[in-house]
């Protein structure tokens, strides 16, 4: 009755579909990564309309059998033995796969990047399907070969010829059918170098969790982002994870050219006087040097233009940093890391 009364009081109000009326542009994620083993790549998309499908199911991948006796398999219905865990793989409708993407260095060398949708790994998967039935042990064929696709949907150098260099100018040129061309440019940063970490004025290879420490680096150009992480053997299974505290700190940015900041004091999260664990863990400190575009896009960043709690999405006016003709950015980083220990 209450609902009926409320229905009478409120005016009719229906959901309405929205349409777009604007010119699409290319949307670029271009990164030149100087870290060994980390690829440089360009992700290429377009802006989408409000009335179009933006994420489409492209395939499903069977991952593993989840046995209902296992506590982690919590989706079991009553009486059910188990179920296959399937990964649904979606692809953005905004992906541009047929563009010509080139990176040109300041020597005029042209590197053409090719679209790669996925990298395929072949895993040997063992399922323990041995069971006992009225005293008889039955062992089934338990070895399967599973293809594990890691979708990347990026433009990468597939020839191995593109080896980015520090302090070098690179231009980006993108041409995609139906869109205005996009160009970009940047100068890669210098390779940063962490000289040492010190605590109580002495260089250390083990950090005491409850005391501040200093990071020392070699002076170079640009800005650097300092991050730190306590590394557990296995985050989910390592029981020390739950007992550990201290050592964490918020990312912060330093001016690598400013020697007055060197060394820089880090006051990590303070821990209680006593920690349950006495285990010493790995502690990884990374210094990531950023060129200007990267710094502007990810650090100084855009202030939000408009907010509405009912939008359910973040908003942007469309950012272009280091590129022209589209949205997105073209940036570069180079990192140095130091693996040491942290003690309670």
């Amino acid at each position: 009755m209450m609902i009926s009364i409320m229905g009478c009081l409120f005016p009719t109000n229906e959901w309405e579909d929205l349409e777009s009326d604007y010119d699409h542009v290319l949307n670029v994620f271009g990164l030149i990564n100087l870290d060994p083993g980390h690829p440089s790549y360009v992700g290429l998309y377009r802006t989408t309309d409000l009335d179009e499908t933006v994420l489409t199911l492209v395939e499903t991948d069977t991952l593993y059998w989840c046995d209902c006796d296992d506590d982690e398999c919590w989706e079991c219905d009553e009486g059910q033995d188990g179920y296959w865990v399937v990964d649904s793989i979606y692809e953005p409708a905004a992906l541009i796969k047929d563009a010509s993407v080139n990176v040109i260095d300041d020597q005029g060398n042209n590197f053409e990047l090719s679209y790669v949708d996925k990298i395929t790994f072949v895993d040997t998967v063992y399922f323990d399907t041995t069971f006992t039935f009225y005293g008889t042990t039955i062992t089934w064929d338990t070895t399967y070969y599973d293809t594990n696709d890691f979708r990347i949907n990026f433009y990468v150098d597939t020839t191995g010829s593109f080896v980015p260099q520090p302090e070098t100018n690179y231009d980006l040129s993108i041409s995609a059918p139906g869109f205005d061309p996009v160009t970009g440019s940047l100068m890669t940063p210098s390779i940063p170098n962490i000289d040492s970490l010190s605590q109580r004025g002495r260089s250390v290879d083990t950090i005491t969790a409850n005391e501040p420490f200093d990071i020392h680096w070699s002076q170079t150009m640009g800005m650097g982002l300092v991050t730190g992480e306590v590394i557990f053997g296995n985050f989910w299974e390592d029981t020390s994870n739950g007992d550990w505290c201290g050592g964490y700190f918020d990312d912060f940015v330093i001016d690598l050219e400013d020697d007055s900041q060197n060394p820089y004091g880090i006051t990590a999260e303070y821990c209680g006087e006593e920690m349950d664990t006495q285990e010493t863990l790995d502690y990884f400190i990374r210094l990531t040097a950023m060129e200007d575009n990267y710094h502007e896009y990810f650090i100084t960043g855009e202030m939000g233009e408009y907010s509405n709690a009912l939008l359910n999405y973040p908003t942007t006016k469309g950012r272009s940093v280091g590129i022209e003709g589209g949205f997105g950015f073209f940036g570069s980083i180079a990192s140095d890391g130091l693996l040491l220990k942290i003690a309670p």
Partner: protein
Amino acid sequence: MFFLRSIKVIIFISLTFLVAQNTSSINGFVRNNANGEPISYANVFISNTSIGAATNRDGYFVISDIPLGEYEVNVSMIGYAVHKEMVELFDGSPVRLEIGMKDQVIEGSEVLVTAERQKFERSIESSQISLDIREINSAPAFIEPDVFRTLQMLPGVQTTSDFSSALYVRGSTPDQNLIMLDGIVVYNPYHLGGIFSTFNTDAIKEADFHAGGFPARHGGRMGAILNVINREGNTNEITGMANISLISSKGLLEGPLPRWRGMKGSWMISGRRTYFDSIVDALKIPMGQKADGTDAYFQFPYFFYDYQVKINLDINQDHRITYSRFYGDDVLDYSWDERESIDNANVDRDTETGFSIKWPWGNRTNGLIWRWIMSPEVVAKTFVSNSRYRFDFDLGFYFRDTYTYADSVTAIFTDVNWRLYDIINDNSIETELTWKATDRHEITGGFQLKSVDFDLGEEVKIATQDTSVIFSPLTLDNKTREISFFIQDRWEFSEKLKFQLGIRGTDYNLHDEFYLDPRLGMKYHYSKDIALKLNWGLYHQFLTTANNQDENLRLVELWLGIPEDKPAAISQHIIGGLEYMSPKNIFYRLELYQKDFDNLLTLKQENQNTMEGGESDTPFNEFWDTRGNSWGVEFLLKKSSGRLNGWVGYTYAETKYFTEPSGWHHPNFDRTHTINVVGNIELTEELEISTALTQSSGNPYTKILGRVYDWEQNLYSDTYWYPLDSYIVGEKNTERYDDYFRIDVGMTRKGGNLFGLEYDTYWQVMNVTKHLNAFSYAYRTKTGMNGDQLGVERRVVPQFPLILTFGVKFDF
């Protein structure tokens, strides 16, 4: 006393040089005989002459330069019987009159002296309007009468939605308005996030509203001025009223002070409290058990209350002391806890978890006003006041495990407490001196010393069995001090041409600059019924609010003094107007205004939390420098007397602000066309019908165009970036919601009698036509059966639906 006498003597001697010895003056007060309330704008004149004056808000008048002789003083005002009194001026000594006027019902066809006509004839200021309690109550309101809701029906006043009673006046945001109660500033005059104003209408005598172009007497704000004047209290007998509406109960008592050594006075106390929380408590809806094992019941954790006190003490005929106090709080108080016990062979474990929110916010004002009639022509008023606004949000969690062994007890606990607060403490002293120097000049001057402590902060407390930590991620406290001087001259150059010239100077302690605000007003009486007005002025402001400019619903305001590195905000007002008072006392006004704003501060939104150089950005001290302008045309037709009364208003307005990221844009309160009709008709002596209609352009909003990937980074041991699906928004606030339309209807039935107690019943229906007015849009992405993310759809988030309310008001 010697000091006061000396000043008085000096002024008297000075004045005797200015005033001829063969003339004298008549001054005094005009009050309602029934309750002693002063009558403003009563017409006091000497019969068979053109010599006269109108009473001011205190009911005070002075007629100077009257040749010696015997005269009949004639006092008239609509609603009262004409008062006539013989006065003899036999030497230069002024004559003081205490005039009491008797209520009288007057037929509508009679030619009347109305307050409207007196105001029309006297006022030089543009854009000023006074609403008496009858007019405030005449507009149907949300559940109960509300002075702010009534003001929203006036031309030039806009709002963001039905859910807000905040006043957006001619392009100014609510923080640019100076809201006062009996002359004492109130910082956040709202209850329930702005749905109700904090002023209880039962206690109000009248509300004086300046939409712009206000004189040098007022400063420190650059939008509008609203001074809500409370009733003084009945000087004759103890009376009262009670009002019960759907959400609250209100009560008022007033009466005379006991006379002592020639001193007399009056008092008034009123209060209000919502009671939905008490009703829910009384229903005892079960909600399990508390930690202590007792039964838990559903709580409605919110209520608001306020009370007002006013005491007037007339020490003698020249000195009056008034004490005024207001206290109003919204309180959100909720707590929940749970307890679990597990008994084992070796150890018993008790686990307690809990959660609490304590959130009081509101205002408290205390003021002492000393009015001193130094001579008939010189009146001094001194205000000493304190105004405190407090917003204090306190969120707490706790977890406690107690292990009881055979020979020992061990406790492990964690208490986490998060507090966000904004406390303003405003201490002011100000004096104004009004000197009717000659028939043509009335000079007002004074000073104000205002000291304001702003304390905005965030505090986190974490306590465990081993340690406790307290840290403050945000601390923004500043102490500001404004010293202001002003002088203004109301100059009647001729019967037709009048000026009001003034200047206000302010020293702000955080800045080196001395700020000067010149104000000019001019009025030309084309005829007895038609006047042209022109006002110009500069207005500086030394405080701002740190709120998101796009928010539709403003629960609280976070106030800050203008910091050292930011200039004071400034606005220029230019207002031209044409006024016509018809012989039947219907007031017509057409005004054209233009306002410029500079040095406004707009809070930056969604500030990133990345620390750069070790310094943390906070969302409360990062602003975009903003400038803006507004202009508009307003028309008002107002009929204040007769069985049919009310007003019709039309506004054409355009407001634009400029910030670096958004360029020039309309703020979200900007409505281009607005028509307001407020009508009240007395069908019979017992039955009154009122209605209010508003039709306006929709408020602006920012349209979403499409979707795009933005990227975020997460750089730890593995470097990676992830896309963030975002809406691309168009130019800021270039779209508008559909037109707003609402009709409210109210009915009051008077003259009920219950066991000898008189009562009125009232019914109100809001949004009679159930018009769908958009508060905002809600958006969602449609998802297909297989998980595909399809297009985007939206739905209107509605404002008020049809709402029926009723209440009863008792008089005793």
